[in-house]
């Protein structure tokens, strides 16, 4: 078969050695291989097949699942514009067009000289400082026309990314309101020292007393989760921190990992103490690649401080360490069982449940998966006790919640409140005016209209993973929903029929309305599709894919009604649009080249 002297072995060998030739680290190996070579070459796969003893089809199956990995050349500079609705509101579409013109490249394609490709990607978690782009998976924010021109110049001159002006890569925390967490002035090791004065059972009891609930949005009791996992038998127990912050409009974990990483790692270590884990993972979304070196440095510091490693703080039997795994552009990996599949180096397809991760998670061993913010809260509870924490917030939602505020407001950024804060209060604090709607917890969450702004951020009323996107009266809520529906189509994993096909059908139907071909028939179709996805999809993505449409139909009906132009059904097919390719090829766009009926189809 293949010889050992494969031309890709030179850069692959050190990567493979670093990962101990562990096939479960396949995704990490592929990501690092691409960082080195720009894409994953088919001969690199030859070598991985041989070295990892994995079938090539599996390697290709994994690589092709993640949107930030490429199996074909994608240009020396791979530019991806974040395409959340907030980026759109800040004008990203014009900037893309402008950049494409300057660099002579069509969006979605690689330039003929192989220099550059320009495309869109799902929300990169920079909504407070958009429009945002990723260049070779490194974040650059606050794009303007001038910045586009400057970037184009650097690309044309083939200046290596490492020599680009540092100011391009500046990322702000934008913290506007602090409460117990963001104000904690946390000293690394302080919570752990306190916790280790007590037994694991006592610490578990403190977490239960705190009534802490998961900050990823679902709100499962953290204490119960830990208790189930601790009680589950297995060769190893694992702690996983879900930092795959992919929900459009959410960016709190980015800030927590930038400026509060010690609290995150300390919370994980406390969890390890309770459930008896020796190993933990932080699963960081690929879009936050720029945080990797910083986080690894903090881990190293914690090892030196005896807060990680063997015999933590002098407790001979307490051994625990943390490894960082990066995702590579797959929202679905925020779903905990898909995240575990991805950690194991596989396609990020949600598992059939039960069994749940607490009994059968990473490598089918008992595993706790918690959100970044949850682990931060654990550190506070370790330091101040469960009763103290339980006192903050409301009866059923203890503690505080960090909101990622973006959209139409004066001061986008992070706002931390005790649970129970009203939407109106947040709007006042962030300087939002003439607000029409707020999308709480991202596309999979809830859209609230102005008559609901007295509703509260709690698990009983408005549960949220943190996103708080503000839309003023000038915004078209139909276009908001359409953007979200396209997001779900892009992010559906493709495993189950209803979500794989349904998200495409739904976005086609929304496009049909947008293109002026809508009738009440299409409306009824959308509602039928909603019900089908809700009742038959495999996981939460499919279940919530219709939420934005359902919510906006219910609350912003006029935005839809004005698109139901026709009384009777008409097909989505648009002959004039179908001829656009021919027009492009012949360079004609005069009236004679169009059919009589002229749509604003695009």
């Amino acid at each position, binding site marked *: 078969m293949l010889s050992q002297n494969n031309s890709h072995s030179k850069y692959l060998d050190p990567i493979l050695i670093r990962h101990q030739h562990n096939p479960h680290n396949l995704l990490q190996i592929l990501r690092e291989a691409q960082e080195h070579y720009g894409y994953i070459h088919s001969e690199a796969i030859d070598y991985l097949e041989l070295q990892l003893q994995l079938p090539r089809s599996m390697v290709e*199956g994994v690589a092709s699942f993640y949107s930030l990995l490429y199996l074909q050349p994608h240009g020396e500079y791979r530019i991806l514009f974040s395409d959340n609705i907030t980026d759109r509101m800040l004008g990203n579409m014009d900037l893309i067009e402008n950049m494409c013109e300057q660099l002579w490249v069509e969006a979605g394609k690689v330039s003929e000289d192989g220099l550059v490709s320009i495309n869109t990607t799902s929300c990169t978690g920079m909504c407070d400082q958009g429009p945002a782009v990723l260049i070779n998976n490194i974040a650059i924010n606050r794009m303007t026309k001038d910045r586009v021109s400057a970037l184009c110049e650097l690309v044309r001159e083939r200046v290596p990314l490492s020599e680009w002006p540092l100011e391009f890569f500046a990322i702000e925390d934008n913290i506007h309101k602090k409460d117990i967490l963001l104000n904690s002035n946390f000293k690394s090791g302080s919570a752990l020292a306190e916790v280790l004065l007590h037994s694991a059972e006592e610490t578990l009891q403190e977490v239960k007393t705190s009534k802490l609930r998961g900050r990823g949005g679902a709100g499962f009791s953290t204490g119960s989760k830990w208790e189930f996992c601790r009680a589950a038998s297995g060769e190893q127990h694992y702690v996983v921190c879900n930092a795959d912050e992919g929900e459009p409009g959410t960016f709190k974990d980015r800030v927590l990992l930038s400026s509060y990483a010690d609290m995150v790692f300390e919370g994980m270590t406390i969890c390890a103490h309770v459930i008896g884990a020796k190993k933990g993972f932080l699963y960081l979304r690929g879009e936050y690649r720029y945080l990797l070196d910083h986080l690894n440095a903090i881990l190293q510091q914690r090892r030196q401080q005896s807060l990680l490693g063997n015999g933590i703080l002098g407790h001979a039997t307490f051994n625990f360490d943390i490894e960082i795994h990066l995702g590579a552009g797959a929202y679905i990996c925020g779903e905990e069982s898909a995240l575990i599949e991805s950690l194991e180096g596989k396609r990020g397809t949600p598992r059939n449940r039960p069994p749940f991760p607490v009994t059968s998670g990473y490598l089918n061993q008992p595993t706790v998966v918690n959100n970044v913010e949850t682990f931060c809260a654990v550190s506070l509870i370790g330091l101040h006790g469960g009763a103290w924490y339980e006192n903050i917030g409301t009866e059923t939602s203890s503690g505080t919640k960090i909101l990622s505020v973006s959209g139409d407001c004066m001061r986008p950024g992070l706002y931390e409140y005790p649970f129970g804060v009203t939407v109106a209060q947040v709007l006042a604090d962030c300087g939002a005016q003439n607000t029409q709607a707020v999308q709480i917890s991202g596309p999979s969450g809830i859209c609230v209209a102005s008559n609901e702004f007295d509703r509260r951020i709690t698990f009983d009323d408005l549960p949220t993973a943190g996103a708080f996107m503000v839309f003023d009266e000038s915004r078209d809520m139909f276009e908001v929903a359409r953007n979200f529906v396209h997001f779900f189509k892009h992010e559906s994993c*493709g495993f189950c029929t209803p979500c*794989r096909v349904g998200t*495409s059908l739904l976005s086609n139907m929304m496009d049909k309305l947008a293109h002026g071909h809508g009738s009440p028939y299409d409306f009824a179709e959308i509602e039928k599709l909603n019900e089908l996805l809700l009742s*038959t999809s*495999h996981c939460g993505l499919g279940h919530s894919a219709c939420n934005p449409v359902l919510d906006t139909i219910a609350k912003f009906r006029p935005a839809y009604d004005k698109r139901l132009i026709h009384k009777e059904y008409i097909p989505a097919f648009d002959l004039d649009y179908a001829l656009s390719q021919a027009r492009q090829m012949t360079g004609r766009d005069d009236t004679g080249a169009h059919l009589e009926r002229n749509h604003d189809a695009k």
Partner: protein
Amino acid sequence: MTQNKKTKSTFTLDGKIIPFIEGQTIIQAAMAAGEYIPHLCFNPEFKPHGSCKICTVNANGRQTASCTQQAQTDIVVESNTKQINDERRALLQMLFVEGNHFCPSCEKSGDCQLQATAYEMNMMSPHFDHFFPDRPLDSSHAEYLLDFNRCILCSLCARASSDVDGKNVFSLAGRGVKTHLIVNAKSGKLADTNFSGDDKAAHVCPVGVIIKKRVGFAIPIGQRNFDEHPISASPHPNVKDA
């Protein structure tokens, strides 16, 4: 299986009492009792996958895939109801428009589970707009043809190849609506894999992707399995005890 265990436990399926052995899923118990729940990605010879969702039932008020949901004592399962069959029909229509299915000229017509299940569910039209995906054939192999146009991504060939044949000839690649079947070769061609007609994987496709060459239409359309009887009477004619 745990044959020595007594099968005392039962649940009801559309009002009928179904006995089950611990560890069986709803569909496994139903099939053992001779009851039909429509399905595509499930095959009694393989570990359930749970992806096509055609076998969705209502168990104690909750919709769930019956191929992966464990049977439990006294649960009330509804399967053959108008609402669920309407949903199944919509899922079948989705599968039809997602690929390119030309039943009248297909070698598997009459033996195809997708077609037969669509008849069973009274599907009269594809309803949705077709996607018309571009899915080139792979005719590289001397004895077998791969017609990806008909693939419904059930992964049975992948499961058979890895779990039974120990070969990993087939895998799923891509994501979302771009998910597609690939074969284990650098060229991407079946001829360059170690696939053989003796493989289990060569004989599990519920539709017409994996087709043996030069024996087309040996049995005339009209005299094939599901021409003779509806799929509900014998969903897996080639599987013993099914």
